[in-house]
């Protein structure tokens, strides 16, 4: 992780953005969004290997411009699927970090005849295996972060320079 305290370049960028005039700051934010939104969404989508992962994680994958910019994913609270019961904001951890697919859960179910019986089955079978490093968003972030960060610094420098030149 890049810590602002460790790099003078980043300190310059952060401080500069803080004290720039509002117009310029908004302009930089807009440029940050415009330039990075697409690649970030693509990166998340490229890493999402299953259709569900892509629906859950890549929905609402966007860059929140600011100081510092923030990569967001799985921010949609709009339910997906036929039953409209699965909301990406609620279920993303299972798709990003996987789950223990072999755990048996027991629950009660009413049969079509109205009898209640206990069901024991692996309810997490649909999720990928546990992976602490994440399947899509975090790898995508690791891939994108260096590029995005250096691009962000360059946008700040470039925009300030342009503004001063009166462009």
């Amino acid at each position, binding site marked *: 992780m890049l810590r602002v305290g460790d790099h003078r370049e980043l300190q310059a960028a952060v401080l500069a953005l803080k004290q720039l005039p509002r117009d310029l700051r908004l302009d930089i934010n807009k440029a940050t969004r415009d330039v990075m939104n697409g690649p970030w969404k693509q990166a998340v989508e490229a890493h999402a290997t299953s259709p569900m992962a892509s629906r859950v*994680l890549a929905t609402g994958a966007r860059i929140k411009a600011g100081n510092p910019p923030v990569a967001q994913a799985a921010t949609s609270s709009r339910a997906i699927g036929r039953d409209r019961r699965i909301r990406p904001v609620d279920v993303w951890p299972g798709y990003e970090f996987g789950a223990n697919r072999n755990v048996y859960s027991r629950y009660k179910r009413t049969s079509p005849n109205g009898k209640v019986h206990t069901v024991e089955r692996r309810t997490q079978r649909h999720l990928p295996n546990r992976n602490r490093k994440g399947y899509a968003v975090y790898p995508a972030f690791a891939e994108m972060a260096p590029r995005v960060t250096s691009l962000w610094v360059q946008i700040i420098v470039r925009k300030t320079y342009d503004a001063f030149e009166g462009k």
Partner: protein
Amino acid sequence: MAKGINIPFIAEVRDFLRGTKNVEDALDDVVDSLDDVAKEADTSGEKAADAFKDVEDAAEDAGKAIDNKFSEKVEEAADEAKPLEKKFKDAFDNVKDASKTAGDSVGKNVNDGFDKAKEGADEFKDEAQSTAKEAAASFDGSADSIADAFQEVAANAFAGFGPAGQAAGLAAALGIGVAISKLQEVADKINEVKEQTGELALEFKDAGGRLEEMNLVGQFDEWLVQIQDARSWFEIWQKDAITNLDNVKEAIEGTGISLGDLYNAFSENDTTALRDYVELLKDVNREIAPDGHYAATAALQEEYNTRKDAITGLEQEIEKREEAEKMAYEMRAAEEGITVEVLKQRDAMAQRNDELQENIDLNREVIDGELDYLDTLDQTTAKLQENAAAGWDKNTAAGRENLRALGDISSAALDYADSITEAGGSQEEANRVIAEGRQKVIDAGTALGMTEQQAQDYATSLGLIPKEVSTTAKANTGTAEQQLNNVARDRDVRYKPWISTADLQSAANAAAQNIVSPYVEVKTYVSTRV
């Protein structure tokens, strides 16, 4: 923290900024030190690469290793950034110097201007401020309104100066500058509002038409603490920055509207209540000064202006929200290739269906609960009869079975009672079930050889206490329990005779067939062509 996954690209920025008292000095230091960085070209590249190695280390939780490709890219980026860095430093130095000298000369002119035309200055300042604000309120962003606003400011602001010659110096030094700054402020404001509207629209869209999922109160909070009128260097008359909260607090004073009312209005699904409040505030203002008139005293005029600011702000918020909602609908409609009307209908239907479905589910649970309860009664009755000889002796397997059977009756009765209250049934209804279950347990217990008292105690220990009064039972166990027992015993008890399992099966099947699922699916057939 927003929901979903949020990863900042750079960590600890907030702490860093908080720890930095003077941003400009700090930036100076950093930029100076960047000079050294540029000199150490070799090490710099390595440093950047190292920096991103950190990402890799931290990828313990952040993800997979970054391969060589990326360090290459990083080095490329570092190379590219080097010439920029120099420009960066120069640009900042220059910007700072330029703004300093500009500020000096303008500031000097301002002071000179005021010295020259002291007698008109007070009037000028009031006029300029209030007209500019009025212009701000009526400003719609078109070229015409810019010109109008400018003329209005210029015309009114200098009205008090008498001879044109006297005002000329001041106008040159100050008037135009103030007017332009004010106009710029307005333009900024409009851009900002547009941007916020867009963000709000995205939230609306994500919520899929279900407003209750949005943090509308949070939006209001954010708006309240926004700085409405920043103190700029040329506004020598303004003491401090003013937030919306300051304005709103003053505006609602003595009007009977509380801040809580406004919060409530904001959290509602539509904006009618908010509009009502705004109308009320407008009425109050109209009493102070009818349209086109000034208030009687300066203090009243001040109050009028503040309230007007608050009204403008609130109206802007309302418009923002309405606009955002409209935008969200349009975006969603376009995405799904249908018209907004169809989408709205569909949302409403989806909501109705959801509610319906929930009711149905709950009703199903009541039915299931009752059937379960009856099942349990039948099964345990059979078991108790079978093991009747064993009594309730814990030391024999059959005795333990019997005690377990009593437990089963109790939990089935409690489940059934829970499902009734959950589905919106009355507590009395649920208590009737509990009382019935309690009586069953007591009857079965006495049949197994317990005394009446023992059976009652056992039923109580299984939790078969009518819910409403159970707290009293805890507080005053002795008498309360006695009363509860009486309550339980006085109830009408349906006693179901034992039936054979075959009969039970057919009875259950018959009952199941009689249950007509009340599920209604409202389908919308939507053509994708509009």
